[in-house]
């Protein structure tokens, strides 16, 4: 029944798609693996015609771009999913959003992948983040760090020691930092506010402006620089101690390398 209404593709081949979503509020404490499971249930509730693997325990064919750490919010998450049939992107978004059953998880975009386009997981090359403070009593810390930001970025190289399971390697992270600036920015919005804004043009609510570091960093399977690791380096450069627990980290978007060597949104 649902397949009839939605079926606009004729062939048997599956449609590869990319879904962009936001995950905020209390859901920042839901781990990556639990999100994968939850999306499977969301797709079932949405009654969309997602493709399944064969066998006794069939599972939906989907994969995710870079996993989001616990305690981090985002308005730039991506999953790739295969469908047997789809309707218009807007209809797909509406169906899935009606099925998330929470204001803190909303789909923002849905598109078919181009022929030969890499999976999100493999394509991600950079990510944009905003980091603010969980409590304004720490504001002084950011203001001091801001004063050292130019000098920090003006270094030719920034060597850090990266610990892996087996060894410690020295790494220059300067080439992995594409941009970083300090400004007062509005606190990030919740998933439903962003969805209402992007999809229906609703006005974003008024929120306070807070001291924020915005950064554009190399990301992905090679040359991954975590925003909190970057900020910790900046802090130690400015002789300040920070605890990651003070930080509200928000992922804005993820990027892939385009044909011209530039970076465009996944």
């Amino acid at each position: 029944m649902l397949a009839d209404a939605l079926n606009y593709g004729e062939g048997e081949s599956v449609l590869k798609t990319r879904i962009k979503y936001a995950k905020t509020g209390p859901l920042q404490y839901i781990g990556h693996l639990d999100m994968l499971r939850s999306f499977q249930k969301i797709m079932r509730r949405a009654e969309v015609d997602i493709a399944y693997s064969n066998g006794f325990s069939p599972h939906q064919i989907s994969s995710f771009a870079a996993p989001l750490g616990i305690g981090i919010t985002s308005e730039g998450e991506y999953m790739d999913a295969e469908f047997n049939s789809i309707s218009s992107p807007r209809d797909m978004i509406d169906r899935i959003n009606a099925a998330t059953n929470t204001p803190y998880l909303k789909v923002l975009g849905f598109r078919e992948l181009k022929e030969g386009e890499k999976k999100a997981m493999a394509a991600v090359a950079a990510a944009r983040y905003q980091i603010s403070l969980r409590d304004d009593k720490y504001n002084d810390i950011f203001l001091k760090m801001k004063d050292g930001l130019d000098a920090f970025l003006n270094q030719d190289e920034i060597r850090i020691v990266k610990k892996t399971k087996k060894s410690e390697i020295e790494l220059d992270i300067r080439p992995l930092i594409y941009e970083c600036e300090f400004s007062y920015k509005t606190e990030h919005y919740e998933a439903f506010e962003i969805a209402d804004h992007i999809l229906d043009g609703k006005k974003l609510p008024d929120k306070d402006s807070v001291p924020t570091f915005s950064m554009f960093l190399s990301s992905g399977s090679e040359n991954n620089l975590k925003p909190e690791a970057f900020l910790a380096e900046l802090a130690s450069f400015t002789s300040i101690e920070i605890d990651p627990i003070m930080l509200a980290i928000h992922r804005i978007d993820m990027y892939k390398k385009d044909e011209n060597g530039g970076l465009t949104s996944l």
Partner: protein
Amino acid sequence: MTKLALSHDILMTVEKPARYIGNEVNMTVKNIDDVDIRICMCFPDVYEVGMSHLGIAILYDMFNKREDTYCERVYSPWPDLHKIMKERNIPLFSLETQSPVKDFDFLGMTLQYEMCYTNILQILDLAGIPFYAKDRTEDDPIVMCGGPCTYNVEPVADFFDLVYIGEGEISYDVLLPLYKEYKALGKSKEEFLREASHIEGIYIPSLYDVLYNEDGTVKSIEPKYEDIPRRVKKTIVLDLSNTYYPDAPLVPFMRPINDRVTLEIQRGCIRGCRFCQAGMIYRPNRERSLEFLKDYAIRMLKNTGHEEITLSSLSSSDYSKLPELVDFLIKYCDERHINISLPSLRIDAFALDVMNKVQDIKKSSLTFAPEAGTQLMRDRINKGLTVDDILSGAGEAFRGGWNKVKLYFMLGQPFETDEDVLGIPELSELIANAYYEIPKDQRNGRVNINASASFFVPKPFTPFQWAPMDTEDEFRRKAYLVNDTMAKMHNHRSLSFQYHDEKTTVIEGILARGDRKLAKALVSVYENGGFFDAWTEYFDYQKWLDAFKEHDIDIDFYTVRERDLDEVFPWDVIDAGVDKEFLKKEYIKAKEGVVTPNCREQCNACGCLKLWRGGICLENKN
């Protein structure tokens, strides 16, 4: 956004913060200013366990259908968070509104197993509510409980203001309006509880005096006032196809123990196994209609998005419309890539056919629950399963490609001899032989027979409520005997054996048939740091022994003592429907090794027919 009760730094420190943030799919959202009654339902164990419980799911849905009530939830904080909450004085909070449990009108706990009793105290402690009902004020919530353990709630009776005996769908629709009325009139908790004691299924422990004989047994249980019933009769739902059932149960983000739709097909059991408390206290057997189950299966799958559905009952094979239901589910689920799991099926041609359709034979195993190793012992416990049943079922399965078998046994049941104990390895060996009799080219490698034994705990309201329990040493001896004999079997490489922890069993045994004298010891265990006793890694036997010693409690009095047939039991204040006389007869028949037919074959006059006109009792009335 509701502010979370725990700060970011705490949520980032504790294991699995998803346990404490609420916001699950299908969570009920209400404004607390719009309701008259706030109920916090609690499963006193960790979130993943509690979220898998059907009873709370039913009550959550039922309470929240009331406009005047908002039902929320709380579970036991894991020891890591427990420590932080104690250190920083963070009061226990509900998941929905993230607000203090102490502010609720009711705190309702479900008591599913005795080993969660210390967690009752943890919940009260973290909530800032006094342990003992007598020490609470008008500002504290009314602390109530329900569930199977309430059929002998006496060891924890002093911790509860109100105990609900029976199935929850019945009396809350009387209790809650009464509460609202009394609250509006400004009447006291004491006045409310006194009036509540007149409602069917409501037991108010503080309204009874328990008198003891010199030997420590109960002399009598006396209502304090004339208007208080001498015995509290359980409530049951007579028409299970016309009652509350959640069509949109909660779906947690983190994986619960039971990550699937649970379709309860019937309550009660026709079998009458003499060791089984559930088989006695949930009588009479009542089925839900096929139409009800089909309708709910579809709605629940749609509303949850679960990829699996399971049928819940004490003995699914006895559900009279099982083939029709299973056919329907297979058709519906197959189109939608949904798995079906069918626990508690008796292995026969029908079961094998169904299992063949819904499971991967290579991965799945056959499960038999003979519960005892010899036919005499199976007759004593009234388990109507013969060696022929097992061997023919297994043989057919082996020829169909199965090669894994699970066998469930109990050690230490009444009148058990070493011959019965040795029956466990012998039966395992027979099943292995049945496998290897199949020509090599028609079987699937080596067979794998996994026997496991739990130690028997006599439970109230069963024919074995009078029986002595084995000692800790005796349990161990029997388990070693099985293990050593298993190793000497010809097919020993195909057999394996596991058994439960005998120390936990001893504590369970004390609590199961305990009385109000145990409350003090429970408080001591908790105050010495003991809780989460249902978890092997947190169970500390020594803490229990110390607490019993401190309060002069004789373990053997509760466990290994054979009760006199005329003894007054602490749980005699409850009327579970089955007569004590019927249970006595069953106990004597067990001694003689005589079986009792099941309820469908013949009414055995257990007492239920007198009380309720429904379910199997009516089916048989001709």
